[in-house]
């Protein structure tokens, strides 16, 4: 019953999306004014209905209704509660329903609260949003119906892939999806502004909170995904340049560029066409990501559906939306008026530089990700990995991070680096640059074995960390706007993460050994001893568990329990690494298999400062949150103020009439 209800509600939501599109398009014509009032309520209702559909699917998973095909194929009655819940989106159909839900709920939210934009632009935006949703509704309802029943209920479910049975599944996909889909709102705003030829600061201010919100979630999603891969895959790496990871990085890069150009447009009315273009690119990258991950063109734990029909469906959607938006952009770009001017030394110029470099990195990642697919189509199989991505993206990332230290100190429009401004800008930045140079020199002299890229990373992090606080210099800290604090934390987070990455690749030590219980090994500052190995059991797995005591430089030992788990439903294996975190790094232990001579393979890493990578990511997201709060608070204050003014005016008018 719940399944049928869910499906019916989903169809109704799709029908409302059609209505929203038709009403929106008609309302933009002079003769269709009357139905303009329809668009907002329909958008809200659509969000409510599709959320109900998702709730229905979640209920089916929680009660393990095995007469539903999706539940039978992906769940199991004995699975822990949290994985039943998260398992709702741990499969192709469920994840697409989650995608559509977030999209429609976000659209409903825009319809409910957005009051700053001219009504026409907002209606065009909502129509654009429903047009995008429609494609995904069609995809869901026609080729991946999550509510399909089985002719006969299955006796038991097939279970969830063991690699996915991790708490990460509860957070990683929804956060990334909110990010992806938030960019669809930015895309719809861009399309709306192009349709009504209304690209200006008001458009940028309306779009900015959505871009910021999406960007925060993308940052969190990528950070969480990276940590998840780090501790579950048992390879000790935190980023593999896997196409699936790149699929989440590319929208992030585009969104970062969009975020910065948006603030130029909002404050200075410059970079108009460029911002619109980035809005289109950012969502296109989300779609490319979805296409890569969900089409089955890549085989990975992320690709649930290996079904060519679905692949071509997403490819068609991709072509329609991106092609359509680019055509619209081509037609309307010439009508977007020239923005305000600025000189080479100015805040705008540094942001343009940042944007161009981010697009450069985006291009590098995109080419590297698609290249193997292209060559494979021509019959040559290649794989592209860190030897390509690391140095080539650094060519763009390093200049960008250098400019990041200066840009926030510059004035809008025009600035100079000498005369009066030397003490404000040139001198402090020079000190930071000297710090970087000293670190680089120190690394080269003391530890020449460290490769160039990690050495540069350490040096830049050392200079960027203090430089990111310079915008606060000479300011009253209590009166500093939250958005400025957000920028400071965001940039500082980049320095922290960079330090973690550089230090991980410069100083990690690894020890691989076959050990008998009682044997000890030295890894970095740690002395590790294999105490014993025994069996343990969990709710739906059994495991061999090693007991390892690890002593840091002779201190009292900590106990670690790396496991090799065997899952029964569905059958599968997973290594469960064990971590010991200190302030200055992490010990990482993995249990391998038993050799012929009853020795156990053990692998240990000592990774100095590796947690900084994820702390940095969290700091970046925190900076975004501060900026978002600052912007929203300012908007609320403005709304309240205009409300009061309007109220007083109406009172005055009433009194005037009364007299």
């Amino acid at each position, binding site marked *: 019953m719940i399944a049928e209800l869910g499906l019916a509600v989903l169809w109704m939501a799709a029908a409302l999306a059609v209505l929203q599109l038709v009403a929106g398009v008609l309302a933009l014509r002079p003769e269709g004014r009357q139905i303009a009032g329809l668009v907002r309520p329909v958008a809200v209702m659509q969000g409510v209905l599709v959320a109900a559909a998702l709730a229905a699917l979640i209920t089916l998973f929680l009660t393990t209704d095995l007469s539903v095909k999706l539940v039978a194929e992906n769940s199991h009655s004995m699975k822990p509660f949290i994985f039943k819940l998260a398992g709702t989106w741990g499969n192709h159909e469920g994840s697409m329903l989650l995608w559509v839900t977030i999209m429609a709920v976000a659209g409903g939210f825009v319809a409910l609260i957005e009051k700053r934009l001219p009504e026409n632009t907002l209606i065009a935006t909502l129509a654009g949003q429903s047009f995008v949703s429609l494609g995904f509704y069609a995809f869901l309802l026609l080729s991946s119906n999550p509510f399909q029943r089985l002719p006969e209920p299955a006796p038991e479910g097939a279970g969830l892939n063991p690699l996915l049975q991790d708490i990460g599944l509860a957070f990683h996909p929804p956060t990334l999806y909110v990010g992806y889909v938030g960019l669809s709102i930015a895309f719809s705003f861009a399309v709306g502004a192009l349709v009504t030829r209304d690209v200006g600061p008001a458009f940028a201010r309306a779009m900015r909170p959505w871009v910021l919100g999406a960007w925060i979630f993308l940052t969190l999603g990528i950070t969480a995904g990276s940590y998840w891969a780090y501790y579950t895959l048992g*390879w000790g790496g935190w980023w593999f340049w896997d196409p699936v990871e790149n699929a989440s990085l590319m929208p992030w890069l585009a969104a970062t560029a969009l975020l910065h150009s948006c603030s130029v447009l909002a404050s200075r009315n410059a970079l108009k066409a460029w911002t619109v273009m980035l809005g289109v690119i950012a969502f296109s990258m989300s779609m490319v990501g979805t296409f890569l991950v969900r089409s089955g063109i890549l085989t990975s734990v992320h690709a649930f559906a290996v079904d060519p029909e679905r692949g071509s469906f997403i490819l068609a959607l991709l072509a329609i939306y991106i092609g359509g938006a680019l055509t619209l952009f081509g037609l309307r770009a010439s009508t977007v008026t020239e923005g305000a*001017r600025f000189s080479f030394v100015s805040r705008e110029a540094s942001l343009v530089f940042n944007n161009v470099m981010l697009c450069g990195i985006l291009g590098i990642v995109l080419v590297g990700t698609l290249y193997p697919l292209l060559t494979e189509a021509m019959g040559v199989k290649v794989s592209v990995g860190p030897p390509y991505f690391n140095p080539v993206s650094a060519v763009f990332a390093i200049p960008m991070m250098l400019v990041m230290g200066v840009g926030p100190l510059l004035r809008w429009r025009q600035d100079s680096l000498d005369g009066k401004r030397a003490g404000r800008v040139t001198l402090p930045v020079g000190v930071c640059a000297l710090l970087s140079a000293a670190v680089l020199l120190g690394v080269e002299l003391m530890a020449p074995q460290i490769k160039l890229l990690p050495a540069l990373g350490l040096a830049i992090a050392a200079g960027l960390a203090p430089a990111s606080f310079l915008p606060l210099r000479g300011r009253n800290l209590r009166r500093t706007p939250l958005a400025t604090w957000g920028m400071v934390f965001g940039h500082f987070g980049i320095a922290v993460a960079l330090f973690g990455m550089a230090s991980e690749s410069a100083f990690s030590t690894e020890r691989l050994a076959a050990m008998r219980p009682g044997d000890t090994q030295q890894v970095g500052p740690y002395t590790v001893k294999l105490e014993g190995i025994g069996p343990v059991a969990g709710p739906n797995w059994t495991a061999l568990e090693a007991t390892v005591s690890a002593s840091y430089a002779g201190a009292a030992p900590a106990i670690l329990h790396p496991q*090799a788990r065997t899952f029964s439903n569905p059958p599968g294996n997973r290594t469960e690494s064990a971590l010991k975190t200190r302030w200055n790094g992490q010990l990482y232990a993995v249990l391998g298999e038993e050799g012929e001579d009853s020795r156990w393979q053990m692998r240990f890493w000592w990774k100095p400062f590796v947690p900084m990578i994820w702390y940095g990511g969290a700091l970046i997201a925190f900076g975004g949150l501060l900026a978002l709060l600052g912007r929203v608070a300012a908007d609320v204050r403005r709304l309240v103020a205009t409300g009061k003014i309007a109220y007083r005016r109406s009172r005055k008018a009433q009194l005037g009439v009364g007299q």
Partner: protein
Amino acid sequence: MSAIKAKHQRLVLLVIALIALIGAGLLAAWALKNQAAYFYVPSDLVAHPPEAGRAVRLGGMVEKGSISHAADGVTVNFVVGDGKARVPVRFTGITPDLFVEGSGVVAEGRMEGQTFVADNLLAKHDEKYVPREMKDMTAQQAKQVVAETK
């Protein structure tokens, strides 16, 4: 450092962006040519060996009875074959769970002399997760088996 004329600013920005993007494209193309790791099956590897030290991937079947463990307990030697040619492989590390004789494997690494030294092994994780190159491999093998039994 002076402000540019309004007419020209957009053009200048456009040109800078284009130069950067074209630069990125050229750089990417050049780097891909040098850095992409090509996928080889054993017969390709024997017929056209890559330059020594170049990162490549080798995919094939782990031959029955070929796995032997070295005395250090963490190095494993085995032979990867495709029915036509055989390549000895050395790998130091923890092997994937489903690394067994007679099953498919993709090894990432480089040729050192006559031996392929692998940095990483990718084996079939479960039914739903098969490295892309290996799917074809099993199909090829299946065809071969069918052809041989006929």
